[in-house]
């Protein structure tokens, strides 16, 4: 389609480009760039645009001419950007088409989710919630016995497994102090006296941080400010804070 525009306007060029690498109508530049006969990398499009803006500030061309420049300019930017991407040889209509299709596909995908979001909202607004029974019963479930050391170690290993391996994170020296982690854990548990074991490590970005967090947890257990329990062999380990005093 832009090819049509360029031939049509060739008689009366939209703009004459004057750069060391190319001198001539911008339509011709586009045609040559599409055929890969001119290297867009050698043509500073920003300077070209600045020059054009200066030119139109003086003789104000009609709207169609401005639009034609925009269309051609946009294609040039698109071609140049595609050319700068590694290992992509663009210049062919089909590839640009594929690129356009990908963008269109993404917009359509977004539209679909927008529709779904509205149906979720209506459903939520209907208030047809489901409820679990009342809070934790007073009776301590039978299975909620002490967690074995192995179970705790396994759970911690699972946390570690999800964090990047040590050699990947030694970019800068970290300082994670046990005192800080102890304080952080105490605050967490005072706000939420019952937490999942993995939630304790939610903010740990590195293995070192996870290890110090784990040490802090062991310390809290040792001094009786926290305890861990598990309702069954495969259940998530729960960390309980100390009962609030005062």
């Amino acid at each position, binding site marked *: 389609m832009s090819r049509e525009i360029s031939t049509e306007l060739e008689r009366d060029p939209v703009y004459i480009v004057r750069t060391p690498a190319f001198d001539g109508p911008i339509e011709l530049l586009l045609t040559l760039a599409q055929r890969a006969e001119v290297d867009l990398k050698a043509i500073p499009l920003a300077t070209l645009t600045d020059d054009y803006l200066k030119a139109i500030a003086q003789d104000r061309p009609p709207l169609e001419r401005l639009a034609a420049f925009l269309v051609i300019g946009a294609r040039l930017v698109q071609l140049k950007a595609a050319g700068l991407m590694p290992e992509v040889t663009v210049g062919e209509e089909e590839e640009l088409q594929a690129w356009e299709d990908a963008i269109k596909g993404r917009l359509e995908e977004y539209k*679909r989710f927008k529709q779904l979001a509205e149906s*979720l909202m209506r459903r939520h607004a209907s208030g047809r919630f*489901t409820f*679990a029974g009342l809070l934790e019963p007073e009776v301590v*479930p039978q299975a909620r016995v002490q967690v074995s050391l192995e179970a705790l170690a396994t759970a911690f290993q699972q946390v570690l497994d999800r964090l990047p391996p040590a050699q990947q994170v030694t970019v800068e020296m970290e300082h994670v102090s046990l005192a800080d982690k102890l304080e952080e854990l105490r605050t967490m548990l005072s706000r939420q006296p019952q937490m999942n074991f993995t939630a304790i490590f*939610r903010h740990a970005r590195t293995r070192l941080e996870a290890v110090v967090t784990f040490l802090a947890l062991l310390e809290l257990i040792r001094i009786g400010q926290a305890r861990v329990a598990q309702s069954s062999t495969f259940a998530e380990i729960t960390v309980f804070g100390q009962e609030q005093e005062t």
Partner: protein
Amino acid sequence: MIGVRDTAGLAAALEAVLFTLNRPVTVLELQEILQSPLPDVEAAAIALGAGLAGRGLFLQRHQDQLQLVTDPAQADVVRRVLRPEYPSRLSPAAYETLAIIAYRQPLTRARIEEIRGVNCEAVLESLEEKGLIEETGRLDAPGTPRLFGTTMKFLQILGLSSLDELPPLPQSGSTST
């Protein structure tokens, strides 16, 4: 393989266990508690869900977790006795993000942002805080980004028995507009 009567018996046992535990219980745990193999536990769950139709209780299943809750049709009467801290209204951005996660889980923040075209850090944080989504694992890629999925609570605020009950994803077949 066990007979029909045994499935009914196991469904009753399952009902009793879910009632007393009063929390999401994984099928893995249930195998151990009920001392039955997985296919039998699954069959019992289906039988229990069907048996509860039209009753005040409701069986919810999120991924491999089961929970006994009240029927969505009884929400109003339950609200007279409970004042649950459920989020009553979310932002449009939150519903969009929830929809994407619900249908595409597990997925990373980058993937969500690719679909929505905007930064989603704040909205994800808020949804996680509300307990509607959670980290389900890490992607095995540079930086091991977090993977997000929905939670049991997500089903609860929508009154769904499982994720399968979500409306179907609209067709992408309708091409150019």
